[in-house]
């Protein structure tokens, strides 16, 4: 029963968030700020993980597909497909669920327990809209950009690994990367990323907005935000893969 209670309350919150803003210019400014806070400040971790994961995927693929019937460029092809279809949109979203989700929940949760949200509501501001909507929109804009960068860096990581270890000749790797490239794969990845961005920002916002008590409860809210947004990302990954690829 508690699950239905939370689902119902989540959708009511989303409805409140989507109400017309009091002052659009203030929301626009908030969106730009949040793009920096939630997106650009995650660029470092996204870049590091992407390069190393790309390198590892290439080496793993090379060692596990060592068969005379498989062309050597298949390593580049498999690396590209793994990175574009799954690694960049899903794994990076899971990492952002941890980094950005905990930040959103703890920021809004702290505002709740220190009565800052009450102060907003007393002023007549739609507190949920003002605090959560810019984060959702900012995430939906900046996360796809992060994912595109991650794709590029992941493939680049594979190229670096090939160059250093020699598991695949560079010309074969590059040929595999370009082999039967389909633009739809990029659209598919970006659609998933936008949906995941909405889930991460709204679910984390939900847990922060309804936090109660003190510092301990804000910590719990933050943990729940990460856990539940990660679960929903994985769940929706399955659903979207089924819808978009089948």
């Amino acid at each position, binding site marked *: 029963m508690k699950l239905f209670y939370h689902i119902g309350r989540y959708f009511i919150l989303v409805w409140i968030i989507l109400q017309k803003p009091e002052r659009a210019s203030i929301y626009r400014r908030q969106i730009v700020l949040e793009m920096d806070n939630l997106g650009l400040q995650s660029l470092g971790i996204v870049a590091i993980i992407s390069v190393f994961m790309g390198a590892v995927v290439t080496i793993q693929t090379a060692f596990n597909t060592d068969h005379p019937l498989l062309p050597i460029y298949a390593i580049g092809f498999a690396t590209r497909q793994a990175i574009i279809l799954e690694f960049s949109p899903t794994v990076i979203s899971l990492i952002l669920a941890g980094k950005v989700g905990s930040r959103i929940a703890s920021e809004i949760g702290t505002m709740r327990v*220190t009565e800052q949200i009450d102060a907003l*509501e*007393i*002023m007549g*501001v*739609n507190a949920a809209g003002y605090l959560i909507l810019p984060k959702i929109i900012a995430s939906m804009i900046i996360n796809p950009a992060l994912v595109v960068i991650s794709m590029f860096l992941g493939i680049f990581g594979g190229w670096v690994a090939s160059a250093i270890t020699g598991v695949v000749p560079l010309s074969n790797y590059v040929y595999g990367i370009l082999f039967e490239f389909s633009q739809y794969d990029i659209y598919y990845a970006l659609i998933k990323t936008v949906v995941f961005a909405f889930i991460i920002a709204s679910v984390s916002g939900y847990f922060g907005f309804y936090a109660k008590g003190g510092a301990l409860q804000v910590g719990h809210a933050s943990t729940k935000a990460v856990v539940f947004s990660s679960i929903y990302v994985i769940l929706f990954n399955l659903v979207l893969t089924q819808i978009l690829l089948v």
Partner: protein
Amino acid sequence: MIRVNHLWKEFNRQPVLKDISLAFEKGKTNLVIGQSGSGKTVLMKCLVGLVEADRGNIYYDDRDFSAMGFKERRAIRKELGMLFQGAALFDSLTVEENILFPLNMFTTMTKGEKQKRVSFCLDRVDLHNVHHLLPAELSGGMKKRVAIARAIAIKPKYLFCDEPNSGLDPPTAILIDKLISEITAEFNITTVVNTHDLNSVMEIGDCVAFIYKGELWWTGTRHEILHSSNKELNHFVYATELMRTLNPGK
């Protein structure tokens, strides 16, 4: 003026407010006093709509707040200012941005007019050269003063203060009390203050309501409070040795 008619509120079947009826007068500092847990904060939260009362009505100058929908309430809330116990300043914004916030959100003032208003509000609470400081860089008393400045920025008709001087040293507490009282008279607003500080009562209590275990037990002025025959009120007022020394008969 704010009127409360037969207000009831319970949490988990435990009554917190029982049939409260009282009026808060315009241009006066109306104090709600009582022990911790007596229901003062719940009453104030019901008044501003942060907590929904189970029964009863709240009228803002004959406008029935209890019967209003979300949008109508938002309109009334633009006439409210509130000073929270912990000041509730937005900690990511500077002092100036905190005071500018309601002006940016709800007014069509020009940038210059807003700056003037911010300076006026900060001058009024006797704060200078703090525009660019963050709340974390302010003392407790300064935070309360900034919160008052933010509350009066949009010229509210009603001002609510929840334990405005809790955690402050006596001189600063009296300073805040006097500021609230002066602002109330100067702008002719209806002010409601929750407190359990007798210094505040004696300093600024134009009208005082005593709540005991969720019930309204006594109303009067700060002068009448020392001579009340109400047993529970006397127990509250004369809890300290100092007060008993002042009035040995109690």
